[in-house]
């Protein structure tokens, strides 16, 4: 807070920049803008461009966009062949459909598990509320990978669940749970549950308790009150939470790779294999572009619920 660093110095600097047409304002806008442009938006353009190339054995392993022919003319090499390939090969189509199915089912399960928890926390008195919220967030801060790994120990043939059930005498042959779609559902619900609970909680705490009392006073039973007042009012929270689970789940790779079986088809896994095993960068790019198209609509929906929340 010394005098030298005060207004005079800032003003002189500002004048200098202003003289060449840069105000402090544009400078401040430029920093995050440029970062996200270069490292978030431009990559998608590169992705789109490479999805139009052809795989070759070279460094980099794809054909260039421009080619100079012997006579010096410049021609653009681009083809939609990779997309045609994705369309024809049922593997990809099934992978997309099955990703959507798995993500949707997991989202619904997460909603059914998360809603009562969020509701309970939102209705709890203060010291308990903070504690419960902390308990929900705590697992989220520990490693995602290790949380998925924990389920490997749980669901295995000799895992905790099977051991327990056999010890209790419920079953005498171990159940096959690992490497099934069920394991993938559990994994997704487990890892993304906080993303469902937090927006729901944020929404439900804002719900005025007097509304519930009013409904009750007007003769609605608690159950009726829930379905006619609480649930409709928490719809924005439901949308936000569902999208926060659904969108990343579509592209999930680690969970199907660790918990799923060889026939658990998910598009993130297909992309990963295409890239790391087949080393076919153009096809992997095309897979990513199509996946991007799939998630754009839900992202917009999420964005619009966020915008509406800001208007309130």
């Amino acid at each position, binding site marked *: *807070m010394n*005098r030298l660093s*005060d*207004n005079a110095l800032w003003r002189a600097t500002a004048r200098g920049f202003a003289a060449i047409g840069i105000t402090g304002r544009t400078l401040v806008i430029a920093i995050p803008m440029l970062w996200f442009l270069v490292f978030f938006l431009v990559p998608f353009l590169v992705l789109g461009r490479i999805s139009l190339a052809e795989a070759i054995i070279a460094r980099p392993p794809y054909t260039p966009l421009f080619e100079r022919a012997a006579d010096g003319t410049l021609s653009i090499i681009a083809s939609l062949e990779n997309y045609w390939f994705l369309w024809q090969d049922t593997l990809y189509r099934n992978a997309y459909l099955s990703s959507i199915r798995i993500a949707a089912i997991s989202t619904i399960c997460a909603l059914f598990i998360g809603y009562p928890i969020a509701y309970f926390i939102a209705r709890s008195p203060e010291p308990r509320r903070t504690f419960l919220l902390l308990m929900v967030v705590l697992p989220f801060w520990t490693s995602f990978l290790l949380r998925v790994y924990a389920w490997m120990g749980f669901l295995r043939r000799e895992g905790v669940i099977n051991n327990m059930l056999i010890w209790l005498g419920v079953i005498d042959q171990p159940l096959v749970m690992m490497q099934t779609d069920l394991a993938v559902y559990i994994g997704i619900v487990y890892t993304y549950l906080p993303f469902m609970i937090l927006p729901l909680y944020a929404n439900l705490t804002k719900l005025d308790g007097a509304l519930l009392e009013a409904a009750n006073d007007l003769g609605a039973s608690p159950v009726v009150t829930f379905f006619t007042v609480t649930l409709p009012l928490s719809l924005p929270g439901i949308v936000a939470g569902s999208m926060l689970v659904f969108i990343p789940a579509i592209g999930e790779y680690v969970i199907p790779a660790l918990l799923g079986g060889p026939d658990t088809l998910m598009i993130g896994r297909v992309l990963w294999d295409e890239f790391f095993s087949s080393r076919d960068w153009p096809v992997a790019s095309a897979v990513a572009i199509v996946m991007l198209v799939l998630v754009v609509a839900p992202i917009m929906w999420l964005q619009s619920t966020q915008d509406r929340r800001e208007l309130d």
Partner: protein
Amino acid sequence: MNRTAAPDAIAADTKPWRDPGAEPFIGIRNITKRFDDFTAVDDVSLDIYRGELFCLLGGSGCGKSTLLRMLAGFETPSAGQILIDGQDMARVPPDRRPTNMMFQSYALFPHMSVEKNVAYGLLREGKSRAEAHARAGEMLKLVKLESLARRKPHQLSGGQRQRVALARALVKQPKLLLLDEPLGALDKKLREETQFELIRIQETLGVTFIVVTHDQDEAMTLATRIGVMNEGAIVQVGEPREIYEEPNSRFVADFIGSVNLFEGRAGMAAPDMMRIDTEVLGPVNARPRPGLTQGQTVWVAIRPERIGLSREKPADAANAVPGVVEEVAYRGHMSSYRVRLAGGQMLRVTQSNLTRDVDPISWDEPVWASFTPAAVRVLTE
């Protein structure tokens, strides 16, 4: 600032707005502010003089706060000019204006102590730390908070916070202090005490104050002059007494205090009396008002406390109408009545309870409501 002096005994130095030759200290010239398609302030012109305590009074959304924020420099006018002490403020950012503001939320910096809050503006002026803190100490003494200098804002009561905000805004000795609902966050009792405190400080320092408020009592108590705003425009400017006694429109008459308004037509005029023909009250005798043509639509405005109630028709009353008491509300120092007139309309009347009446007028009694010509204000808009 002798507020109780008879209105006609002008001293131009205490009421410069009555002197046509006086130089205004703040000139607001045709200021308009539009937000997208909403016009918040609509072509406002206003002169404010040195040493005034000027109140901008209006309901919420009338543009009074926007006008204040344009004076402080937080909003840029869409059109028009603001002059402070002869200097055009158009290109002057808020940090370089000779004004300071007291915010409605007080806006005390939560991470700084009371003393640091008050010294902040002095440090920004380039004052040394020692000088800034010495001056902050003096200012805190003026608002009687010197013992709390090391507290953080969240450790203060509402009234204490209000005084810190005032000290912080005054410490730089601004030419003009802008106050946005300065007493709005205080409870009623504290508010009344603080009003006089505010006047005391303003008179001690001689700073020009512009206060934004929605509370007419507050404006009446504080102001040398009041500017009443409605829908972005100034509808009347005047001393508190003028605004109350001589409102220029139905809006002002109705906004300040309570009033009975009846439509009528200007009738015969004599040098010392004129008649207004109303449907509800019949012919009403009023003081003559120049500039009215016979048959013109006008409104008569009568304050409830200027109407007398009696069981018998008063013999010498210039105006008297019969009615039946519909409601009585006893309010301690006075009682309010609603009197149903012959045509079914209601007349509001208040009577001070000067003596303990053994047989007060009560429900369902037929009464006469009477008022003098001077109690009638004739309005044309």
